[in-house]
C-alpha cells in the first residue's frame, strides 16, 4: 500500500509537467536541505551548462541523503563566485521583498530555507570545459564567509555534452560526499543485451551513458559479475558448446586465461573482496551444481559444498570476505542461504515460501537485495531488501512486471535491477528505499545487471 501511495505523485508530476511544480516536497524529513544554483558560462562553454546543471539536479534530486530544494524558490540573483557574497545578515528593515541572493541569509531564511548552498560558473579554457564549483554552509553561526565554505573545486572535462555530464556528476558527488555519500563516478554496470542479435555482455556508465558491447561471441553469453577492484568481468558463455566461465579485462577488453574444470556447467562467479579468489557453481564430479572455490585463473580448485541439491549464485560478503549467500534447492524451491567461506554453518535467510533468488550484498555487508515471489505464483518476482542479521525484509517493487537481479551501487544508496514493466526486460535503477525508479536501457532486451566499482 505504501508503494502504491508513493507512485501516485510521481505519475501526477509526469502528467502536469515539471515546470508547473512549485511546491516544496520534503521527501527525506530531517535530511540536510541543499540548494544549488544554475551555473552559467560564457563563450563555447555556455551551451553546455544546461547539461551540467540538469546532471547536478538529477544526481542530487535522486539522492536519499539530502533534500534538494527546487530552484523556483531561489532568489532572482545568485552568486557566481565567492567574491559575490556579502557577509553578515541584512538588517531586517533593509531586507528587500525579493532578496538579491548575495548574502547567505538570503538562502538560509524562508522561502529557500537551505542549510547548504552550491554555486559557481563555467568557462572554456584551451578547448576544455572548466567548471568552478563551490559549496557553502548557510548556518547563521559561521564567524566568516571563509569558514562557511565547505569546498571549492575545479572540474575539468571535455568541451562537449559528455564532458558536461561528467563534470556535473563529479560536482554532485563531491556535494553528496559531505553527507556520507560514496561517489558513483567511475562505477559502471555490466549487463546482458541481445540488441546485436545474440546475448552478449555489455557495459555502461552507472547513469546509463556510454553503452558498449564487450563480447562479440555470437553465442549465448550471460551472468556477468565483476571483481571488487573493477578490473575483471566474469561471465558464463556457451562459446565452447557448453556453459563455461570466461574472464575479460575491463582495461583492455581482452580475454584473460581461465581454466574451466571438466564439467557440464561452470557458472556464476563471485570474487573475494581482495579480488584474488573466486567462488562459483560447477557440476564438476557429477551431481547437482555445487559451490567451488579457485584462484582467479581457475587454478587451486576446491569443492566447498556437498548438499546434493542445486547450489547457484554464490555472493561473497564484500565487507567481511568471511561469509557468503547463495541460492539452494536443499529444501525444495530455491531459497537464499547464508554460510561461511568453507560452505559450512549453513542457515536459510529467505522465508521458505515461494522462490527466493538473485541475492546481492549492500557494500556495507549488512543487507542483501534479492528477488522473491513471496509465495505468489512462480515467476512473479519482486525486489526485496533484507537485513541479514534481523532478517527483516522490505519490498521495493510491486505490480510492475517481473523484477530480478538487484545489484547494489558502491554508494549503498542505489540498486540497479532488471524489470519487464513495459514489456521487454530493461535495466532500471532506484534508490535503495524503492523511490526514484528510472530505466537506463531502451534498446533490445537487457538483463542481469551487475554494478562494477570504479577501478581501484
Amino acid at each position, binding site marked *: 500500500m505504501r508503494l502504491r501511495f508513493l507512485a501516485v505523485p510521481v505519475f501526477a508530476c509526469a502528467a502536469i509537467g515539471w515546470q508547473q511544480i512549485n511546491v516544496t516536497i520534503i521527501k527525506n524529513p530531517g535530511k540536510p536541505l541543499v540548494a544549488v544554483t544554475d551555473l552559467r558560462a560564457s563563450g563555447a562553454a555556455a551551451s553546455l551548462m544546461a547539461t551540467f546543471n540538469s546532471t547536478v539536479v538529477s544526481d542530487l534530486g535522486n539522492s536519499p541523503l539530502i533534500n534538494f530544494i527546487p530552484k523556483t524558490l531561489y532568489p532572482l540573483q545568485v552568486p557566481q563566485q565567492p567574491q559575490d557574497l556579502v557577509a553578515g545578515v541584512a538588517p531586517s528593515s533593509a531586507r528587500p521583498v525579493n532578496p538579491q541572493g548575495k548574502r547567505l541569509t538570503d538562502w538560509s531564511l524562508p522561502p529557500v530555507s537551505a542549510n547548504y548552498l552550491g554555486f559557481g560558473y563555467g568557462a572554456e579554457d584551451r578547448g576544455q570545459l572548466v567548471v568552478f564549483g563551490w559549496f557553502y554552509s548557510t548556518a547563521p553561526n559561521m564567524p566568516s564567509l571563509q569558514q562557511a565554505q565547505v569546498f571549492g573545486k575545479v572540474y575539468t572535462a571535455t568541451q562537449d555534452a559528455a564532458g558536461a555530464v561528467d563534470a556535473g556528476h563529479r560536482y554532485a558527488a563531491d556535494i553528496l560526499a559531505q553527507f556520507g555519500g560514496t561517489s558513483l563516478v567511475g562505477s559502471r554496470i555490466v549487463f546482458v543485451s541481445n540488441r546485436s542479435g545474440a546475448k552478449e555482455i555489455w557495459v555502461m556508465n552507472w547513469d546509463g551513458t556510454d553503452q558498449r558491447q564487450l563480447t562479440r561471441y555470437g553465442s549465448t553469453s550471460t551472468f556477468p559479475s565483476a571483481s571488487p577492484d573493477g578490473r575483471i568481468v566474469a561471465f558464463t558463455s556457451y562459446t565452447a558448446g557448453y556453459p563455461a566461465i570466461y574472464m575479460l579485462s575491463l582495461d583492455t577488453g581482452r580475454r584473460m586465461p581461465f581454466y574451466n574444470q571438466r564439467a557440464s556447467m561452470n557458472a556464476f562467479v563471485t570474487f573475494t573482496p581482495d579480488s584474488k579468489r573466486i567462488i562459483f557453481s560447477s557440476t564438476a564430479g557429477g551431481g547437482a551444481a555445487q559451490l567451488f572455490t579457485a584462484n582467479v585463473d581457475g587454478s587451486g580448485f576446491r569443492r566447498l559444498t556437498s548438499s546434493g541439491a542445486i547450489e*547457484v549464485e554464490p555472493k561473497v560478503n564484500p565487507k567481511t570476505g568471511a561469509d557468503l549467500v547463495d541460492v539452494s534447492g536443499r529444501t525444495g524451491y530455491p531459497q537464499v542461504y547464508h554460510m561461511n567461506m568453507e560452505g559450512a554453518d549453513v542457515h536459510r535467510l529467505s522465508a521458505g515460501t515461494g522462490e527466493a533468488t538473485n541475492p546481492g550484498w549492500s557494500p556495507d555487508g549488512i543487507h542483501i537485495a534479492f528477488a522473491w515471489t513471496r509465495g505468489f505464483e512462480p515467476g512473479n518476482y519482486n525486489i526485496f531488501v533484507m537485513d541479514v542479521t534481523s532478517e527483516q525484509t522490505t519490498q521495493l517493487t510491486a505490480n510492475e512486471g517481473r523484477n530480478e537481479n538487484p545489484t547494489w551501487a558502491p554508494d549503498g544508496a542505489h540498486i540497479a535491477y532488471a524489470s519487464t514493466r513495459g514489456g521487454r526486460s530493461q535495466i532500471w535503477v532506484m534508490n535503495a528505499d524503492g523511490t526514484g525508479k528510472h530505466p537506463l536501457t531502451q534498446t533490445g532486451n537487457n538483463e542481469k545487471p551487475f554494478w562494477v566499482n570504479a577501478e581501484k
Partner: protein
Amino acid sequence: MTTRRAAVAFTTVFMLALAAACHKKPLPPPPASAPPPQPSAANKPTINYFTAEPSTISSGQPSSLRWSVTDATNVQIDGIGQVSPNGRRAVYPTSTTTYHLTATSSGGTSEADATVTVATPPTPETAPARPTQTSAEMLASQVQDVHFDYDKSDIRGQDQTIIQSDATALKTIFAQDPTFVVTIEGHCDERGSAEYNLALGDRRASATKDALVSLGVPGDKLKTISYGKERPLCTDPTEDCYARNRRAHFSAGTQ
C-alpha cells in the same frame, strides 16, 4: 510417436513432390507458331530462351539444350554449328561445358550462354551403402523428448515407457553407427530464475542420461548440456507451454 512418424513421412512426400516439381518445371512457352518468324532487317535478334536441362548431369548422361530466337538470320551454337531459330539438341559433355549461342541479323548480334555442369561421380570409398535413414534422422523420428514437473528433475512415471523406447532406439542407432554421438539437452520453463534453471536443466539432462544408461545405453555416447531457459520451444505464459519447455531433448552430435 505417431505424429512424429507422420511428420517424417510428410517431409519425405514433400521432398519428393518438390523434386517432381523440379522435373516438371514448366518449360518455356512454345515458340510463337501463328505468325511465322519474319526476319526483319531492322531488328536486333531476340533470344527468347537458351537453356540446358538438366543443368547438372553425370559424365556421359544427356542434357537437352533448348533455344528460341526471333528476328535472326543466322543462329550459331559454338561446337554445334548453325542451327534453326527454334530447336533442341541433346548433348553428352564429359566435363562441365558452357554452350554459347550467337544470333545475328542485319540489325545486330545477340548472345546467350547455357552451362551443363558435370558432377564428379562419387568415388567408391566415400560412398558407403547408405542406410535408409541417417542416424540423425532416426534420432529425430524415433527418440522422444522426456518431460518434467516444475522444479523437478526425476523421470515421471508416465515417462518411463518413453525412456524405455528411447533406450531401445538409441541402442539400435549406436549399434548401426558406432561413431554417432548424442547430446541430451536439458531445458526449463521461463518462470524460475535463469541461474537456478541452468543448474536444473543440467539435472534434467543427467537424470535422463542416467535412466538410459541403466537400460543399457552406452554412457560414453551420451553427452549432456543445460540450456536452462535460454532456448524455449514456445514463449506463451500458459501451463501448456511451460510443460512443453520442461524437457530433455536429444540432438545429434556434440554441439
